[in-house]
């Protein structure tokens, strides 16, 4: 029944936790990634906005200068590097971000005013708006504001990595609660999984409380719907176990009956002998007593045989020969046939009949022949024959007894089943079941039919797989 699994889960909760946890982690990473991207975009938007504001502020600060320039245009503007262009406060304000920020004022292709920072630029910007320039140490994001009327362009810039620093700061700040949050959430998940699986533990407890005697089915309505298929299959299993237990009990009852009845006869005969004074009657009773003991012993042997067959698994068998075993069985039963006034006949084609386990072959042959002898009338004949047909051998035993009614044929190989005819023969109903059980172990089948010649009697056919010569 064991099914090969590559890796059986250690624990249902652990497996569920692993899966849900993995999904959860993926979701968390996605959310965190999205949050990071959104934060980055927001920060970019704000900083870009600040660049625009910065450019406009610069324009406002330089308004006078620019206006003056517009009123008195010069052909070649001199480099005006005047500290007073920006007030000390303005400079200072700029210097706060000195490392990060820069500005340029271009006029006619020349830088007229610049901060100390920023990438070296050789050419004035050719268009307005944002652009990025790779400097020697860092990358810069620039905003250009052109004032075509006065031939001036204002450029404000910022190092790109300041944004990275900011974003990194935000991410780090998020990471701390995130790292605390994950184990707490894991604990909560574990707990709620355990809680959710409480019903399952209830089922385990319920089954654990069961004893071998209590095999009643579990009530379906007492369990959640998801468990119904499980409950239903447990119930089916319980049903099968109960049937097996019932069978077992019936077997024990029958075995007890079959053993106690001859013992009761033995005891009765012994007590009758004790109370009998007539020597002839005593002798008859003693003979009956001995016979009773023989019968009890035979019954014990049959039960033991059945028990041995029961515990036998299909295993590699030693090779045997069906002819040898059948002939041996006929020899064993010759005396019994003589006593019943039954003639035995044997017919088989030449050559060996290689087959399975000799003991099983002998059990099949002897039980079928014994059954035939028991049910044969005085002066009847039991004909035993062997046939070969392809992969199988057939052992046929034909008697002249009353036969088995069609409706009883399926039952006669059940243990302790006795047909109406068996009642008169005093059989226990074990012989045919031993034959059937042995055949099952040999991989053969047992079949009962009327005599082919139409006369009263039974034809029992045991089909036994032939052993291939090379498989020896």
């Amino acid at each position, binding site marked *: 029944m064991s099914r090969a699994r590559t890796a059986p889960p250690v624990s249902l909760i652990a497996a569920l936790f692993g899966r849900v946890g993995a999904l959860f982690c993926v979701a968390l990473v996605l959310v965190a990634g999205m949050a990071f991207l959104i934060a980055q975009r927001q920060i970019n938007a704000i900083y870009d906005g600040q660049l625009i504001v910065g450019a406009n502020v610069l324009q406002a600060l330089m308004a006078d200068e620019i206006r003056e320039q517009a009123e008195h245009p010069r052909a070649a503007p001199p480099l005006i590097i005047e500290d007073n262009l920006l007030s000390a406060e303005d400079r200072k304000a700029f210097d706060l971000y000195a490392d990060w920020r820069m500005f340029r004022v271009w006029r006619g292709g020349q830088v007229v005013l610049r901060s100390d920072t920023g990438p070296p630029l050789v050419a004035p910007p050719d268009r307005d708006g944002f652009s990025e320039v790779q400097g020697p140490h860092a990358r810069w994001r620039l905003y250009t504001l052109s004032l075509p009327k006065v031939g001036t362009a204002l450029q404000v810039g910022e190092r790109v990595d300041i944004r990275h620093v900011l974003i990194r700061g935000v991410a780090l700040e998020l990471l701390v609660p995130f790292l605390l949050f994950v184990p707490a959430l894991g604990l909560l998940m574990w707990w709620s999984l355990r809680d959710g699986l409480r019903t399952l533990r209830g089922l385990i407890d319920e089954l654990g409380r069961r004893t071998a005697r209590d095999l009643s089915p579990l009530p379906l309505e007492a369990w959640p719907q998801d468990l119904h298929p499980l409950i239903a299959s447990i119930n089916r299993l319980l049903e099968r176990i109960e049937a097996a237990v019932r069978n077992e009990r019936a077997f024990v009852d029958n075995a007890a009956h079959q053993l*106690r009845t001859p013992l009761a006869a*033995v*005891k*009765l*005969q012994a*007590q009758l002998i004790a*109370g009998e004074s007539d020597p002839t009657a005593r002798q008859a009773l003693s003979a009956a007593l001995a016979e009773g003991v023989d019968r009890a012993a035979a019954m014990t042997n049959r039960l033991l045989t059945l028990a041995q067959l029961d515990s036998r698994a299909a295993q590699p068998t030693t090779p045997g020969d069906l002819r040898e075993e059948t002939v041996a069985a006929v020899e064993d039963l010759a005396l019994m046939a003589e006593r019943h006034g039954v003639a035995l006949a044997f017919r088989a084609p030449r050559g060996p009949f290689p087959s399975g386990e000799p003991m099983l072959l002998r059990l099949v042959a002897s039980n079928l022949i014994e059954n035939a002898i028991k049910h044969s009338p005085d002066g009847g004949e039991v004909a035993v024959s062997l046939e070969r047909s392809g992969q199988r051998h057939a052992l046929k035993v034909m008697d002249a007894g009353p036969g088995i009614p069609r409706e009883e044929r399926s039952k006669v190989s059940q243990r302790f089943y*006795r047909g109406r005819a068996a*009642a008169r023969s*005093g059989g226990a109903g074990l012989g045919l079941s031993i034959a059937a059980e042995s055949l099952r172990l040999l991989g053969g089948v047992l079949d009962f039919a009327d005599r082919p010649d139409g006369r009263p009697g039974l034809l029992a056919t045991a089909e036994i797989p032939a052993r291939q010569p090379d498989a020896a």
Partner: protein
Amino acid sequence: MRVLVVEDDPMLASGMLHALQRAGYTVDLATTADEALAALRAQRYALALLDLGLPDGSGLMALREARARRDNTPVIIVTARDRAEHKVAGLDAGADDYVVKPFDLDELLARVRAHIRRGENRASDVLSTAELSVDLTARSVAFRGQPVSLTAKEFKVLAALMRRIGHFVSKEELENEVYDGEAEVESNTIEVTIYGLRRKLAGDLILTARGLGYTIPRRP
């Protein structure tokens, strides 16, 4: 007294037959439930001993069927099934007693006597009138205080008449008391037996009326 034994094991059946006959009972044997039911329908038995594991079905079913048709013959189940639930089922199906194999012969015979006694509403197995005393257990007879030796047949006929003292018992009923299933009935056996009893006891002890049979009248 006629007893029915329902037992399919030929050896045990023959032993029980032997033991019961030796105890003075007339015994019929049935080996299947069908035979048992047929016998119970054809005959009135003082008691039936019933095996449960019969080849054509459980003896319990036969018992239920017999009880269903108001057959109140005392029944003792004699079986190998010793579990309490089996005993309960057997007694509930209408059995009067339950004996587990292998049983003790003396105990079984005592139970048989007890149930026949109860079935016939008697307090004792010693039947007596002023002059005559018949001990069914010891199978002894005393007339006017003196022990009398009787043949088996004579005892059976006398016991049958004493068990129904004051009533006529037909010749057929007496024949049934005397003959086992297999023996051939001789037409004048009862007359010969009655003659023997009258000779050994008293000529006027047993009265006859044609068409009714024989009786031992109650004498004040």
